[in-house]
Protein backbone atom coordinates (compact mmCIF):
# COMPACT_ATOMS: atom_id res chain seq x y z
CA UNK A 1 0.00 0.00 0.00
CA UNK A 2 2.75 2.48 0.91
CA UNK A 3 4.63 1.89 -2.33
CA UNK A 4 1.42 2.37 -4.32
CA UNK A 5 0.57 5.52 -2.40
CA UNK A 6 4.03 6.94 -2.96
CA UNK A 7 3.95 6.03 -6.63
CA UNK A 8 0.66 7.84 -7.01
CA UNK A 9 1.86 10.92 -5.14
CA UNK A 10 4.98 11.14 -7.31
CA UNK A 11 3.20 10.41 -10.62
CA UNK A 12 0.93 13.36 -10.03
CA UNK A 13 3.74 15.88 -9.74
CA UNK A 14 6.08 14.91 -12.59
CA UNK A 15 6.18 15.40 -16.35
CA UNK A 16 6.77 11.73 -17.14
CA UNK A 17 4.46 9.73 -14.89
CA UNK A 18 5.04 6.59 -16.97
CA UNK A 19 8.68 6.62 -15.87
CA UNK A 20 7.85 6.60 -12.18
CA UNK A 21 8.58 3.40 -10.37
CA UNK A 22 8.67 2.72 -6.67
CA UNK A 23 10.37 -0.36 -5.33
CA UNK A 24 10.17 -1.58 -1.77
CA UNK A 25 13.10 -3.14 0.01
CA UNK A 26 13.06 -4.64 3.43
CA UNK A 27 16.04 -4.61 5.69
CA UNK A 28 16.72 -4.84 9.36
CA UNK A 29 15.85 -1.26 10.06
CA UNK A 30 12.53 -1.41 8.29
CA UNK A 31 11.23 -0.74 4.84
CA UNK A 32 12.92 1.44 2.26
CA UNK A 33 10.94 2.78 -0.66
CA UNK A 34 13.03 3.74 -3.65
CA UNK A 35 11.55 6.28 -6.00
CA UNK A 36 12.76 6.09 -9.59
CA UNK A 37 11.85 8.94 -11.89
CA UNK A 38 12.92 10.34 -15.23
CA UNK A 39 16.12 12.30 -14.90
CA UNK A 40 14.36 15.50 -15.93
CA UNK A 41 11.83 15.05 -13.13
CA UNK A 42 14.41 14.63 -10.42
CA UNK A 43 14.34 18.28 -9.49
CA UNK A 44 10.60 18.27 -9.17
CA UNK A 45 10.55 15.30 -6.88
CA UNK A 46 13.30 16.68 -4.69
CA UNK A 47 12.17 20.28 -4.70
CA UNK A 48 13.97 23.36 -3.57
CA UNK A 49 16.13 22.50 -0.60
CA UNK A 50 14.60 19.05 -0.62
CA UNK A 51 11.22 20.42 0.25
CA UNK A 52 9.14 18.19 -1.99
CA UNK A 53 11.02 15.04 -1.00
CA UNK A 54 10.41 16.02 2.60
CA UNK A 55 6.69 16.46 1.96
CA UNK A 56 6.56 12.99 0.36
CA UNK A 57 8.34 11.49 3.38
CA UNK A 58 6.01 13.25 5.79
CA UNK A 59 2.88 11.93 4.09
CA UNK A 60 4.24 8.40 3.71
CA UNK A 61 5.34 8.35 7.35
CA UNK A 62 1.82 9.36 8.35
CA UNK A 63 0.30 6.58 6.26
CA UNK A 64 2.79 4.10 7.70
CA UNK A 65 1.25 4.73 11.10
CA UNK A 66 4.36 4.70 13.22
CA UNK A 67 6.29 2.09 11.31
CA UNK A 68 9.68 3.18 10.14
CA UNK A 69 9.75 3.74 6.38
CA UNK A 70 12.58 5.28 4.46
CA UNK A 71 11.96 7.11 1.22
CA UNK A 72 14.89 7.46 -1.17
CA UNK A 73 14.78 9.32 -4.43
CA UNK A 74 17.03 7.50 -6.87
CA UNK A 75 18.58 8.99 -9.95
CA UNK A 76 18.18 6.09 -12.37
CA UNK A 77 20.83 7.35 -14.77
CA UNK A 78 23.47 7.51 -12.11
CA UNK A 79 23.03 4.25 -10.32
CA UNK A 80 26.08 2.42 -9.20
Amino acid sequence: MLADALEHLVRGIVDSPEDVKVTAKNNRRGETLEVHVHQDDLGRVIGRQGRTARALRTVIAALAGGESVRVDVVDTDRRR
Partner: protein
Amino acid sequence: MSADTTPEIHSAAESVEPTDTVDETAQSASPSRVEEEGDVAADYLEELLDIADVDGDIDIEVRNGRTYISIDAEEESATLQELVGRDGEVLEALQELTRLSVLSATGNRSRLVLDITGYRVERNGELNRIAEEAVAKVKNDGVAVALAPMGAYERKIVHDAVADLGFASESEGEGPNRHIVVSATE
Protein backbone atom coordinates in the same frame (compact mmCIF):
# COMPACT_ATOMS: atom_id res chain seq x y z
CA MET B 1 29.56 17.01 -13.09
CA SER B 2 26.44 18.60 -14.37
CA ALA B 3 24.47 16.17 -12.29
CA ASP B 4 25.72 17.91 -9.17
CA THR B 5 24.11 21.17 -9.98
CA THR B 6 21.10 21.87 -7.91
CA PRO B 7 18.14 21.00 -10.06
CA GLU B 8 16.07 23.94 -11.12
CA ILE B 9 12.66 23.16 -9.87
CA HIS B 10 9.54 25.07 -10.32
CA SER B 11 8.78 24.46 -6.74
CA ALA B 12 5.53 26.19 -6.10
CA ALA B 13 6.11 25.60 -2.45
CA GLU B 14 8.37 28.47 -1.56
CA SER B 15 7.35 30.93 -4.17
CA VAL B 16 3.63 30.57 -3.85
CA GLU B 17 3.46 32.55 -0.68
CA PRO B 18 6.74 34.42 -0.53
CA THR B 19 5.49 36.98 1.92
CA ASP B 20 2.60 37.18 4.25
CA THR B 21 1.26 40.20 2.51
CA VAL B 22 0.07 38.12 -0.38
CA ASP B 23 -2.14 40.12 -2.63
CA GLU B 24 -5.38 38.22 -2.52
CA THR B 25 -6.56 39.87 -5.69
CA ALA B 26 -3.39 39.10 -7.65
CA GLN B 27 -4.78 35.87 -8.93
CA SER B 28 -7.20 36.62 -11.72
CA ALA B 29 -7.96 33.03 -12.50
CA SER B 30 -10.78 32.43 -14.91
CA PRO B 31 -13.69 30.35 -13.66
CA SER B 32 -12.78 27.39 -15.84
CA ARG B 33 -9.19 27.48 -14.65
CA VAL B 34 -10.31 27.50 -11.05
CA GLU B 35 -12.64 24.62 -11.76
CA GLU B 36 -9.86 22.63 -13.38
CA GLU B 37 -7.64 23.29 -10.38
CA GLY B 38 -10.22 21.87 -8.02
CA ASP B 39 -10.85 18.82 -10.19
CA VAL B 40 -7.18 17.96 -10.58
CA ALA B 41 -6.57 18.36 -6.87
CA ALA B 42 -9.63 16.35 -5.88
CA ASP B 43 -8.65 13.50 -8.23
CA TYR B 44 -5.16 13.46 -6.81
CA LEU B 45 -6.43 13.27 -3.24
CA GLU B 46 -9.26 10.87 -3.97
CA GLU B 47 -6.94 8.31 -5.48
CA LEU B 48 -4.62 8.61 -2.52
CA LEU B 49 -7.51 7.92 -0.16
CA ASP B 50 -8.50 4.94 -2.33
CA ILE B 51 -5.02 3.47 -2.21
CA ALA B 52 -4.76 4.01 1.52
CA ASP B 53 -8.28 2.61 1.94
CA VAL B 54 -9.47 5.65 3.83
CA ASP B 55 -13.08 6.79 3.81
CA GLY B 56 -13.41 10.49 3.23
CA ASP B 57 -15.64 12.91 1.39
CA ILE B 58 -13.86 15.49 -0.69
CA ASP B 59 -15.47 18.86 -1.07
CA ILE B 60 -14.37 21.63 -3.43
CA GLU B 61 -15.28 25.22 -2.78
CA VAL B 62 -14.14 28.43 -4.45
CA ARG B 63 -14.11 31.65 -2.47
CA ASN B 64 -12.59 34.90 -3.72
CA GLY B 65 -10.85 33.07 -6.52
CA ARG B 66 -9.14 30.66 -4.17
CA THR B 67 -9.88 26.97 -4.16
CA TYR B 68 -10.59 25.29 -0.83
CA ILE B 69 -10.61 21.53 -0.65
CA SER B 70 -11.78 19.75 2.43
CA ILE B 71 -11.70 16.10 3.32
CA ASP B 72 -14.12 14.94 5.95
CA ALA B 73 -15.35 11.65 7.24
CA GLU B 74 -18.72 10.84 8.74
CA GLU B 75 -17.12 8.83 11.45
CA GLU B 76 -13.98 9.74 13.24
CA SER B 77 -11.12 8.39 11.23
CA ALA B 78 -7.74 7.66 12.74
CA THR B 79 -6.06 7.71 9.35
CA LEU B 80 -7.49 11.09 8.43
CA GLN B 81 -6.23 12.30 11.77
CA GLU B 82 -2.79 10.96 10.84
CA LEU B 83 -3.02 12.93 7.61
CA VAL B 84 -3.40 16.11 9.65
CA GLY B 85 -0.47 15.26 11.88
CA ARG B 86 0.97 17.15 14.78
CA ASP B 87 0.41 20.88 14.36
CA GLY B 88 -0.97 20.14 10.91
CA GLU B 89 2.46 19.09 9.69
CA VAL B 90 1.20 16.30 7.43
CA LEU B 91 -1.67 18.46 6.21
CA GLU B 92 0.84 21.11 5.06
CA ALA B 93 2.89 18.46 3.26
CA LEU B 94 -0.16 17.03 1.52
CA GLN B 95 -1.34 20.51 0.56
CA GLU B 96 2.05 21.21 -0.95
CA LEU B 97 2.00 18.01 -3.00
CA THR B 98 -1.55 18.73 -4.11
CA ARG B 99 -0.53 22.20 -5.28
CA LEU B 100 2.35 20.63 -7.20
CA SER B 101 -0.03 18.17 -8.83
CA VAL B 102 -2.09 21.10 -10.09
CA LEU B 103 1.03 22.82 -11.37
CA SER B 104 2.11 19.65 -13.13
CA ALA B 105 -1.28 19.02 -14.72
CA THR B 106 -2.20 22.57 -15.70
CA GLY B 107 1.05 24.51 -15.75
CA ASN B 108 -0.48 26.98 -13.33
CA ARG B 109 0.67 27.71 -9.84
CA SER B 110 -1.93 26.82 -7.31
CA ARG B 111 -2.65 28.49 -4.01
CA LEU B 112 -5.36 26.06 -3.03
CA VAL B 113 -6.01 25.45 0.62
CA LEU B 114 -6.48 21.92 1.85
CA ASP B 115 -8.29 21.12 5.05
CA ILE B 116 -8.81 17.75 6.67
CA THR B 117 -11.41 17.06 9.37
CA GLY B 118 -11.84 20.78 9.90
CA TYR B 119 -8.36 21.28 11.29
CA ARG B 120 -7.90 24.67 9.65
CA VAL B 121 -11.33 25.90 10.61
CA GLU B 122 -10.59 25.08 14.22
CA ARG B 123 -7.10 26.54 13.99
CA ASN B 124 -8.54 29.74 12.51
CA GLY B 125 -10.53 30.20 15.68
CA GLU B 126 -7.38 29.67 17.75
CA LEU B 127 -5.40 32.12 15.63
CA ASN B 128 -8.08 34.76 16.06
CA ARG B 129 -7.95 34.24 19.81
CA ILE B 130 -4.16 34.51 19.74
CA ALA B 131 -4.47 37.80 17.84
CA GLU B 132 -7.02 39.15 20.31
CA GLU B 133 -4.88 38.24 23.29
CA ALA B 134 -1.80 39.85 21.75
CA VAL B 135 -3.73 43.03 21.00
CA ALA B 136 -5.07 43.13 24.56
CA LYS B 137 -1.54 42.81 25.90
CA VAL B 138 -0.26 45.59 23.64
CA LYS B 139 -3.13 47.75 24.80
CA ASN B 140 -2.59 47.07 28.50
CA ASP B 141 1.18 46.93 28.76
CA GLY B 142 2.12 49.26 25.95
CA VAL B 143 4.75 46.85 24.62
CA ALA B 144 5.12 44.98 21.37
CA VAL B 145 4.20 41.30 21.60
CA ALA B 146 6.09 38.59 19.71
CA LEU B 147 4.09 35.48 18.83
CA ALA B 148 5.26 31.93 18.27
CA PRO B 149 6.60 31.08 14.77
CA MET B 150 3.95 30.20 12.18
CA GLY B 151 3.72 29.32 8.51
CA ALA B 152 2.76 31.87 5.87
CA TYR B 153 -0.87 30.87 5.75
CA GLU B 154 -1.35 31.18 9.50
CA ARG B 155 0.56 34.44 9.68
CA LYS B 156 -1.76 35.87 7.07
CA ILE B 157 -4.77 35.01 9.22
CA VAL B 158 -3.19 36.64 12.27
CA HIS B 159 -2.14 39.76 10.31
CA ASP B 160 -5.71 40.17 9.11
CA ALA B 161 -7.16 39.65 12.57
CA VAL B 162 -4.76 42.17 14.13
CA ALA B 163 -5.50 44.72 11.40
CA ASP B 164 -9.23 44.25 11.99
CA LEU B 165 -8.65 45.14 15.62
CA GLY B 166 -6.89 48.34 14.56
CA PHE B 167 -3.38 47.31 15.52
CA ALA B 168 -0.18 46.75 13.57
CA SER B 169 1.72 43.53 12.94
CA GLU B 170 4.91 42.61 11.19
CA SER B 171 6.70 39.38 10.45
CA GLU B 172 10.20 39.01 11.79
CA GLY B 173 12.82 36.27 11.68
CA GLU B 174 13.69 33.90 8.90
CA GLY B 175 12.52 30.46 7.82
CA PRO B 176 11.12 28.33 10.61
CA ASN B 177 11.57 31.23 13.04
CA ARG B 178 9.43 33.63 11.11
CA HIS B 179 6.91 35.03 13.52
CA ILE B 180 4.59 37.95 14.02
CA VAL B 181 5.20 40.92 16.26
CA VAL B 182 2.09 42.84 17.23
CA SER B 183 2.34 46.50 18.15
CA ALA B 184 0.26 49.63 18.39
CA THR B 185 -0.17 51.70 15.26
CA GLU B 186 1.72 54.98 15.29
